[in-house]
């Protein structure tokens, strides 16, 4: 059988770098093919060649046995290749149908007017194959991320795409939304559309894909049959070494560091109480939208309390701004690094120093020497790579940006660190570095709160887990009873918590 898509010894070099070296693999019609690799392994470069953004230095892309040479993205689209990016490229104020026809609107009267009605009818037709609940006339901004992704898939159907490449499509989806997406992908595959699925999440790749190609350092290092391979093997292939099975280490003391009593906010939080000990890692689990992020924002002073009280070291505190929370020793490592974490154009060293500039200043002037000495020290400690202190932070990988943000709170001498999805969008190698860093911080006596959607992550890190549901604390699970099923049972609204408790106790 002729493969739907074939990469034949694709190489791509940029000045000074070989981004891809002799990458070859096939994707059969209707196959869902995983593309795995750490950040920087060359997956994005390969996808950009497929979608016509880059031209390969050598080698060839074949579609249904025909060699193609795309000069621009529109050529690839015309040849039946659809790209669905991690960050959706849609115009929020335009309707679903308008977005689906963006760039090649259906017109009437010789191109003078856009035929809105015709567009909506065609969009509805395409969407009906995958999701009937989406109204083609609704503005994109009124849809959830998951639905917007389905609109992108609908657009691919509209273009009669033969290959759909999806780059980290699930990074912001809930488990239910992921199930829905998995169904849609399966129905595409049943229509004979081939799918290239890029993700960091092993369990998803194993569930959705039949085969996967694994890349490392711009080379193809393996083709795996996911029915027989194990997650561990695949990860080892990706990182080029065996990752150690990680043990949880606990450094909890019995000194209370922070006590929250009956916290409520205008946003979502209702009557939340908990204590955080010195040296403790407290996990906060719950569905997306359950109020986890809002709870962290309350503690970090980014949102206001409407009721309740917070005490640190036994002293009552009240924050109007993050600045006040920082002064009280609290630092937030936010979920959306690009939006809430980094100042993209500034060097990594000043990004690190941003929360503690006054401690590097005397008489209103920043002491460059002092700042650099601290940056040397702390950024080395978090193992920043490449170790270039003057490099703008936007040029670093997600994992290294995250390390710089963690160093920001070390520089500010924060005693309480709040991590919101600490490893989102970070590759496997850097992930384990972040885990060790969090552990080291606890060992040194920092108190830590980790919010995460990844249950293995939260179980790996936490001494205790607070499960949040609809803005309230649904359960507090101690380490010895900590299992994925215990967390899930409490996290889902309407679940019978009593029965779940028993179940959790039994599994433990």
């Amino acid at each position, binding site marked *: 059988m002729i493969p739907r898509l074939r990469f034949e010894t694709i190489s791509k070099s940029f000045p000074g770098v070989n981004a891809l070296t002799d990458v070859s693999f096939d994707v059969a019609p209707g196959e869902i093919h995983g593309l795995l690799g750490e950040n920087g392994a060359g997956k994005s470069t390969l996808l950009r060649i497929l979608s016509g953004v880059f031209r390969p230095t050598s080698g060839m892309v074949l579609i249904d046995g025909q060699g193609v040479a795309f000069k621009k993205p529109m050529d690839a689209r015309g040849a039946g290749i659809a790209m669905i990016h991690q960050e959706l490229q849609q115009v929020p104020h335009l309707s679903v149908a308008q977005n689906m026809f963006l760039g090649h609107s259906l017109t009437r009267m010789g191109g003078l007017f856009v035929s809105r009605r015709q567009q909506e009818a065609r969009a509805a037709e395409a969407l009906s194959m995958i999701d009937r609940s989406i109204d083609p006339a609704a503005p994109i901004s009124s849809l959830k991320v998951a639905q917007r992704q389905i609109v992108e898939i609908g657009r691919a159907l509209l273009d009669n795409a033969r290959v759909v490449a999806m780059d980290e499509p699930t990074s912001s989806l809930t488990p239910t939304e992921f199930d829905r997406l998995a169904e849609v992908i399966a129905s595409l595959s049943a229509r004979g559309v081939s799918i290239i699925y890029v993700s960091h999440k092993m369990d998803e790749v194993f569930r959705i894909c039949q085969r996967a190609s694994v890349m490392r350092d711009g080379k193809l290092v393996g083709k795996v049959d996911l029915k027989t391979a194990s997650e561990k093997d695949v990860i080892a292939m990706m990182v080029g070494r065996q990752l150690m099975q990680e043990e949880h280490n606990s450094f909890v003391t019995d000194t209370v560091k922070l006590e929250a009593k009956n916290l409520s906010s205008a946003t979502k939080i209702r009557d939340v109480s908990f204590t955080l000990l010195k040296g403790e890692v407290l996990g906060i689990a719950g569905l997306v939208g359950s109020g986890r992020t809002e709870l962290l924002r309350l503690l970090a002073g980014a949102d206001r309390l409407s009721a309740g009280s917070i005490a640190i070291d036994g002293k009552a505190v009240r924050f109007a*701004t993050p600045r006040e*929370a920082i002064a009280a020793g609290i630092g937030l490592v*936010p979920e959306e690094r690009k939006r809430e974490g980094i*100042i993209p154009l500034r060097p990594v060293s000043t990004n690190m120093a941003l929360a503690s500039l006054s401690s590097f200043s005397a008489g209103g002037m920043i002491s460059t020497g002092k700042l*650099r000495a601290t940056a*040397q020290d702390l950024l080395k400690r978090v193992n920043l790579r490449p*170790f*270039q*202190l003057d490099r703008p932070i936007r040029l670093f990988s997600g994992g290294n940006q995250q390390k710089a943000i963690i160093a920001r709170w070390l520089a500010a001498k924060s005693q309480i660190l709040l991590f919101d999805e600490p490893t989102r969008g970070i590759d496997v190698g850097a992930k384990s570095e972040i885990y060790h860093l969090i552990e080291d911080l606890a060992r040194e006596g920092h108190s830590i709160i980790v919010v995460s959607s990844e249950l293995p992550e939260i179980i790996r890190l936490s001494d205790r887990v607070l499960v949040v549901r609809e803005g309230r604390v649904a359960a507090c699970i101690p380490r010895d009873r900590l299992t994925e099923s215990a967390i899930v049972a409490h996290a889902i609204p309407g679940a019978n918590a009593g029965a779940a408790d028993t179940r959790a106790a039994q599994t433990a």
Partner: protein
Amino acid sequence: MTSSSNAAESTPAFRRFSFSLRDAGTLIGLIVIMVVFAALVPEFLSERNLVNILQQSSINACLALGMTLVIISGGIDLSVGPTAAISAVITATLLLAGTPIPLAILAGLGVGIVCGFINGALVAYVGLQPFIVTLGTLSTYRAIALIYTGGNPVLGIPSGFRSLFNGNLFGIPTPVIIVAVVAIAAWILLKKTPIGEYLMAVGGNEEAAYVAGVPIARTKITAYVISGGLAALASLILIGRLGAAEPILGNLWELDAIAAAAIGGASLMGGKGSILGTILGAIILGAMRNGLTLMNVQAFYQLLATGLIILAAMIIDRATRGRG
């Protein structure tokens, strides 16, 4: 010490004594313009004319320095001209009433600072968009200046004041010296103080700056207050030169100031800008007008040249971005 950390240590020394590639680009632009005019007009490069260019650029440079800080913070200040006008007519009125010169100067600067503070407070506390706020105060401040004077110029500014702002020190015009001092102060503010870092952080990513504890409102207000204060200073230079304060002075000043900042590398998206670049940008505009005037080119063509130079600068900027 590993080799990578040695490499990291060697960078700052290089940084400290050189300037950015973008500034080098602006400087090359200036040199090209100077060379062209020097070839076309023999007297262009005379010492007297060069000093003239600096003097003619000084008012715009003064405004553009404040504008640069505002633009870096992610804002814009369209109200600098009318701010200058209010400051000018009030200072002039005080001088005519016999107020001691230092007091009148302080009052004039104070007026500019108040105007800037109002802009900043509306942006930072009320949360209005900077363009709209300063578009509103552009009209409001102009109206105040006109109402205050009944539309008439304030004539007869005392010579003591004039010699201060229109005199020479060691053969250099005082406005040039004043602006040079302001530029150095602005450079120190931007590069060496927490406020400068905060300006770049707020303009570069306001949400992240907030989470990192940057005092957002204070930072923004500081930028507008400096811009207002420098607009007032520019107006003092102008009325020192003219000997009169007109309520309509400073019309369209904001556009020249924005142009100088943009030519110098400031991004209207915020987070990026250069003091040295802005000064060079102001001198580029000044040198061009001066050269064209020496060549007796009609005013229409001068306007055309100004427009083209701005577009050319931005096109070159776009084409070379992403490197350095």
